[in-house]
């Protein structure tokens, strides 16, 4: 099926099998490998992207379902070369160890700060609930988001 999506401002048109998950389309067909596949079961959140501004796990929908949408991935955050305040805060707070979960953490935190620029500590924790850090480095991630929100 013909699928047209705009990712980080660039339009892509491809012929896609309906059974292909959105994450595979993004990574394998479009070579945008910033979004990761951690668990492939909807648990870990490493594949989180913004679909028409809404945070979703891209392993939990089909690429054909994204036809006509605007998608933002981690590559789009610093597209002018300068890190966003949130990304800089992740760097400053050592909010990544192996880095595998980072693309998803950044997208979840970006979604939070757009809708709620001054979240409470509980709101930050609740917003990151769908993202698992296998290094268990949650505290620094939490501190980074909190600092970026101030």
């Amino acid at each position, binding site marked *: *099926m013909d699928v047209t999506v705009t990712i980080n401002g660039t339009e892509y048109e491809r012929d896609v099998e309906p059974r*292909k*998950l959105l994450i*595979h389309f993004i990574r394998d067909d479009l070579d945008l490998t910033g979004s990761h596949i951690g668990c*492939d079961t*909807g648990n870990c959140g490493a594949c989180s992207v913004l679909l028409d501004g809404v*945070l*979703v796990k891209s392993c939990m*929908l089909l690429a054909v379902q994204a036809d006509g949408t605007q998608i933002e991935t981690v590559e789009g955050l610093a597209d002018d070369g300068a890190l966003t305040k949130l990304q800089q805060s992740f760097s400053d707070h050592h909010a990544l160890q192996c880095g595998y979960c980072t693309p998803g953490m950044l997208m979840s935190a970006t979604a939070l700060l757009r809708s709620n620029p001054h979240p409470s500590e509980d709101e930050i924790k609740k917003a990151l609930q769908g993202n698992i850090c296998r290094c268990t480095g949650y505290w620094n991630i939490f501190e980074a988001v909190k600092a970026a929100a101030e």
Partner: protein
Amino acid sequence: MLLSDVEYAKPSSVADAVKLLEGNEGARALAGGQTLINVMKARAASPDKLVDLNGIAELKGIELGADGTLTIGPMTTYSEILASAEAKARPILGQVCAQIADVQVRNRGTIGGNICANDPTNHLPPLLAAIGAQMTIAGGGGERVVSAEEFFLGVYMTAVGQGELLTAITIPAGKGDGFAAVTLGVDGTCIANAAASVNGSLRIALGCVDATPVLVHPDSVDSVRETVRAAGLNPPSDVHASSEYRAHLAEVLAERAARQAVEKG
């Protein structure tokens, strides 16, 4: 993960969706996909055709009637229920939707998908059973309205038959409701749950203990545990809880939910 080969259609009306589902035993309706896509990854189901309901505007939205009755489109997401001013007419809805999984799942998962999946560990089947929701089902032969007792038929089975669609969930006015659960981690899968509603009399629906929500009607909050015990539950055992422990949790959670309901009623 690569799914089994599947066809895909995205109708824009209920009538078109019903036509696509009718007469095709291998066709499945795709709502939010937060259950079905995973089930397909595991090959526990391999539909020949997915009929995506995400393009059907008439299946979305929340209306609040003059008498306080809520009519919710089954394709309304948990996040939309949480954000809805209308849905606050029955506050328990938002309170329970906020406990389902995480932001990403709540942004995509739908109230209709949750009850049509009828996984015995889901939050919404017992909740909707306790608060007296009614479900409208459309098919080639027209529409019918069923109660929760008639809607939930078995594990993963509901009154929505092949070639039919759930088109509306109607919830009467009320605020004396409660919900309690023991979960795997915060907001995780339920090991046991209970929803209660007090509207004249007390009505409790127990989840995770049988194929469908178990309804009990205690005379008062003080007789909840006794009534649940008398229901003779025989819950499944699994790695998370033995049958005996689940039955014990059902009693405890029923009382917690009932006390919340009475306090708010």
